[in-house]
């Protein structure tokens, strides 16, 4: 396989607060290749968004700080890159779209002006050429009568249209990596379907790598090539999308899937991962999933675990993953017995 476009190597981003050191990202490694979609799955506090912001070096500092590891983009380490270098990369080579387009778009500029801004900043073009590019981009993302909509202010557009404008802006400089942080979470399902299809089509046209951050396993199954499942600041499972669903090797991944209600399936009660999502300021010691894990064994799981390759290209951070892979251990939480 060719060299990855972007590779995270043991990335650590901590936040130093008065009370504690929050290890929001604690040794994350993953990579994406050109034309590939990597889905980063996790719940609140798993560190999936902080990882993405670290890639663009957008972590507020202080209190945040990249404490260790490397972010290799086309061979350069972004952790040590200068601020000027980062400004050239952001938006031009690595772009990001966010969950809520209304908070990322400037309400006092028209959509067209905001895209022009991005283009002029990174490329040697005059404003007229940049405006032509902006309208082209708005057409590309499927905004009807793009020339007129370029003069619309964000509040005049619907949520789905705003997200399209965000995508147009992010792609205006033809980035090689797009980070999409929950791009459809704030949208209705029928609009989500439009946006996901659009992203897929644009990815094929431009050939960029996409890091899709989401909590929705349905979206993962339909769009991703590879999956990194994050829990409590660490990647706990890393594999191709088929294996992630057909044969999860980490009890957290298995539990997430088992707890989803599925259309057309009747079950009395849903299987449940017990307990609560851990607070980033107080991650459990040892395996961070052990307090909620149905196959936890003491004392082995009270020791920190490493992400290791179990078979083929399938890695998991679990001491029992070999037994799970061999089929001798069921990692999913048991069917619940209800106490009347």
């Amino acid at each position, binding site marked *: 396989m060719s060299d990855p476009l972007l590779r995270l190597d043991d990335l650590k981003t901590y936040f130093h607060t008065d009370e504690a050191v929050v290890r929001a990202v604690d040794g994350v490694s993953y990579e994406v290749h050109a034309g590939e979609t990597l889905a980063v799955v996790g*719940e*609140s506090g798993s560190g999936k968004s902080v990882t993405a912001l670290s890639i663009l070096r957008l972590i507020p500092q202080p209190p945040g700080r990249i404490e260790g590891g490397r972010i290799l983009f086309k061979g350069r380490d972004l952790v040590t890159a200068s601020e000027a270098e980062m400004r050239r990369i952001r938006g031009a080579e690595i772009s990001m779209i966010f969950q809520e387009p209304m908070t990322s778009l400037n309400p006092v500029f028209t959509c067209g002006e905001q895209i022009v801004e991005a283009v002029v900043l990174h490329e040697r073009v005059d404003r007229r050429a940049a405006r032509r590019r902006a309208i082209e981009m708005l057409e590309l993302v*499927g905004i*009807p009568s793009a020339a007129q909509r370029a003069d619309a202010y964000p509040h005049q557009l*619907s*949520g*789905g*249209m705003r997200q399209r404008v965000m995508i147009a802006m992010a792609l205006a400089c033809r980035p090689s990596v797009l980070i999409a942080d929950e791009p459809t979470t704030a949208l*209705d*399902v*029928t*609009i*989500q*379907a*439009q946006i*996901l*299809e659009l992203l897929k089509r644009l990815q094929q046209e431009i050939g960029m790598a996409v890091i899709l951050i989401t*909590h*929705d*396993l*349905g*979206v*993962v*199954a*339909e769009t991703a090539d590879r999956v990194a499942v994050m829990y409590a600041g660490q990647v706990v499972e890393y594999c191709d*999308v*088929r294996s992630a*669903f*057909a044969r999860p090797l980490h009890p957290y991944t298995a*539990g*997430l*899937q088992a*707890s*989803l*209600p*599925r*259309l*057309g399936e*009747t*079950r009395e*009660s*849903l*299987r*449940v*991962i*017990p307990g*609560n*999502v851990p*607070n980033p300021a107080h991650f459990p010691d040892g395996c961070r999933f052990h307090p*909620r894990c149905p196959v936890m064994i003491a004392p082995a799981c009270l020791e920190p675990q490493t992400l290791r390759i179990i078979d083929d290209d399938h890695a998991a951070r679990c001491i029992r993953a070999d037994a799970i892979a061999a089929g001798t251990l069921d990692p999913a939480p048991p069917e*619940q017995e*209800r106490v*009347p």
Partner: protein
Amino acid sequence: MTDVIVRTPLVEVTDLRTWFPIRKGLFSRVVGHVKAVDGVSFTVDAGEVLGVVGESGCGKTTTGRSILRLIEPTSGSVKFDGQELVGLPRRDLQPLRRQMQIVFQDPYSSLNPRMSIGTALTEALTVHGLARGRQATHDRVEELLTLVGLSPSHAARYPHEFSGGQRQRIGVARALAVSPRLIVADEPVSALDVSIQAQIVNLLRDLQRRLHLTYIFVAHDLSVVEHISDRVAVMYLGRIVELAPSRALYRSPMHPYTVALLSAIPIPDPDRRRSRIVLGGDVPSPSNPPAGCRFHPRCYMAQAICRTDDPPLREVAPGHLSACHFAEQAMAMAPGKDGEATGWEETGRLGGTEP
């Protein structure tokens, strides 16, 4: 609940309308109305769970709140256990409020941050005159916390000390404090993490069985709604477009909007690629809904009649209502269909005015 033999509607909603005036100018002249709920009728039996689904702006939340009169309906009738609620003076409404409670989407913003959980629950009891002495109230609070899977010791804690899932448990306990018969659950799990959603769904279902509660379960997530509901109402632009037992709705939807909505939900299984009906455009504005059938500008089977005649909600199969002139063909005419909701082979792309 199929084991109930005699079904009596606990809630009977007839032609409910809730319009919000749009005001403009110096004298706040009314220039139009946002017709959030525009002619909705349905019944909910005692002990039944009715799911209400739809996209943002379809009026599902307004419907739920109008039933409880947390928002004043513009016209129509809401009967609770035979008694008319619309137009009932506040004084007479108060005793009925005890029997109808609501669980909100965001439990954090619905809890007073300066009030301990025990105090908040005690207040609910006091307001409705159910606090009978300090010890009895204390016992009741502990009982409620245990009922929703929390520990009695949590009574002394404050909302910020709890996680999202625990807060929603508190929201449920607060609703249950007055022993209601009806609970309107407004997106009760959509703000929660995936691993926590299942916990709350199971809790709500358990409580419904155990306490013989009636739910109106409002949510945008069809798979959650299908899981918990006996029947499901699908709303679009202030109207119910389809109402059916949840299995039937999923297996054989009889409205093109439901067909499209079901096909848009991503399935968590990479081996089950299915075609998707991508609806063109956005939901039109509820202040100026399209003439004829409100769905016709985005519909894949719209005919001339759909642009002029508003289809009534009619029974197209036993217990299965649809507001479509061509309800019987909704599945058969879906692009790329092969007759089963999950088995579409090709991707269908639908017209409408926008790509």
